[in-house]
């Protein structure tokens, strides 16, 4: 846990663009909340590999969101069930059900539908919020911490140096 926090702090402190980190975390949210072996996750992997998105942030966030997904599955199930049973949408779902692509995408599964809709709705706000937060962190908190005596002392401490090298 400490390792993960240290790694995450390092990512935040790295020279990576805030958008790369926030995109990594947002994509991890999609892959983590939805069932891993779903067709849309192939697209997530493709985007992740083809574009300069922070992989470390993605992997850390994926572990976090996957764990969180177990708690949220009942919520996603209810959301998915509501959407899939929504009367106005039945014709659309039936047409999609008769399409091989959508059947392979497994859209008719309550958790797939619920989690995907929830994460897609949260995706852009998540990127924007994370961008804002990372920028704020770097300009205020990180600068303040770097200048503080306690951080200077910790950085010079042999114990902390050994601990961080063990973590690495």
């Amino acid at each position: 846990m400490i390792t993960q926090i240290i790694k995450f702090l390092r990512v935040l402190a790295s020279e990576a663009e805030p958008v790369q980190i926030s995109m990594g975390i947002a994509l991890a949210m999609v892959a983590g909340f939805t069932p891993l072996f779903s067709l849309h996750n192939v697209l997530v992997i493709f985007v992740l590999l083809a574009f300069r998105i922070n992989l470390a942030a993605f992997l850390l966030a994926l572990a976090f969101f996957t764990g969180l997904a177990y708690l949220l599955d009942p919520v996603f199930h209810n959301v998915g069930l509501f959407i899939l049973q929504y009367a106005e949408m039945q014709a659309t779902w039936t047409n999609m059900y008769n399409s091989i692509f959508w059947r392979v995408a497994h859209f008719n599964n309550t958790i797939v539908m619920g989690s995907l809709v929830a994460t897609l709705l949260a995706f852009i706000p998540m990127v924007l919020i994370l961008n804002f937060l990372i920028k704020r962190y770097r300009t205020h908190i990180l600068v303040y911490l770097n200048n503080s005596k306690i951080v200077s002392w910790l950085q010079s401490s042999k114990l902390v140096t050994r601990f961080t090298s063990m973590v690495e």
Partner: protein
Amino acid sequence: MKSIRWGGLIAIVVMLLLLTTTLLFAGRFIKPLIESGLTDMNGAKVDIEEVKISYTPFMIEINNIQIADPEQAMVNTAQIDKVKFALSLGHMLLGKLVIDEASITDIQVNTARHKSGLIEKIAKEDSSKDDSEGNDNITMPEIDLPDIEDVLAVEPLISDKLISELEDDLSKTDKKWQEISKVLPNKAMTDKYEARFKKIQNDVKGNTSQKLAAIKDAKQLSDDLKAEVERIKQAKQQFGADLDRLSEELKAAKDAPALDIARIKNKYKLDNLNAENISQILFGDQVSGYTALARKWYKRIAPYLDNKEAKKSPEIERSKGVDIVFNELNPMPDLYVRKTMITANLPRGQFEGIVTAMSSNQAINKEPMRLRLRGVSLVNKESEEISGEFNYVEKTNGFSRFKYMIVKSKIDDFVVSRSSKLPLTMKRALMDFNLDAKLQHGSLQGTAKIQFNHVSFDSGSSSSLLASSFKGVKAFNLDGHFSGSMSDLSIKLSSDLDNQLGKELKNKLNQKKLEFENELKIRINEKLKQSIARIESRKEKLDVIKNKVDGNEKQLQQRLAALRDTINAEQDLKKKETTDKLKDKLKSKFGL
């Protein structure tokens, strides 16, 4: 361009290349998977030489499939030269195997294997064989007559017993009569009585004192003779009773053979011999063998007839969610083969056929599976056709129907029975066969009609009555009616063979029975003849004794009567003389 990660793109290209390569060589990868799956289904090894996959259109071709027989390690139940089918890729992506057209080319059965087809599991379970083993030990009915020598050797005869008792009685009677005869008047005694009688006759002619003595002797002789006659009468009474009893015993001994014959006939059920249900006995085991074979194959295919897909209950696991099912425009079951063309090269000839609408859930595609297989180049028969319908569209009322028809099939040297009592071979025949069976709600109902024409039976060297009856049979039918569950099938066989054999057998049997009876009578009579003759001879001797006693009695009676006459005459004479003397005296006194 700064935002693109070139290394990642290369990784994607590499992954796509790997995927393409995998698809190109998919045949090699899926071959062991198919072999393993089919082996599990078959219960013995299924070997495949090659699996070819093409993608435009999406086709799979499987060459040289060898399906080992679970019960015979070095034999293939079937060997298929080629199985080719065009798959719907779209349905396959949905986890469904939908085949528009398949062909199964050149099926051969019971081909030899180069290596054992047993798998370890089966080898261990080999000891627990099912009940499909045939039985050549037919228990033939006891229709032939028993051997007379054997019967007479083991059967105690009443005649023998009665004769033995009669002989004992004769011996005792003879001894008793000899004792009685000793005290009866013999010739010396009768001569003595004769001499006394003559003396009395002489004395009567003498003077008065002689006459008086003669009368006294006559009275004494009369008493003696009366006593003798009384003894003779008692002896005669005894002899008469003995002779009556001996005659009755002799009559019973003479009648005993008839009783013995009746008892032997009853014991060996000579009157009950017939040919009823011979067809059941002869063909019952053959039918049981075919039934066991059908049961074995049913056991194998039953799991696939049972609609597992329909019974599948939806999974409602929270972490996996629920799959909501919408109406499908063209619903398809998990497995569907629209049409399969089959060609087979079997020892009985070449066959071709078609199977339509093979489905794992007929309720979805709403059409029954049908198959039709017919012979096109047959060996020793005019036509052969198998057709079947497996209709489980309505799950609650599903059924399987199977029809099998053979026309004019030549039969040569068909072993009907290997029984030592009746080794029977159908040397030649022309057979028509019709089977119609329906399996519904776990119960099998059906009929099998077989007509045999131009039949020639051979019973080898057997001289039994039943075997000889088969020679007259030129045509017969065999009808089977079966019903019940596959595990407890009741089969009833009927045939006009029973009637035909029955008539033939009845005539021969009656003749044989008559001969047997006569022979038995002769043999028993021969056996008893000497004893009876001996008994009759001994009885005749007793008759002679009785006649002799009768003669003696008659003689004594005559003498007794004569003696009585003499005494009476003498008494009358004496009375007259006395009367005359008295008259003379009266005349002289009174001067009359």
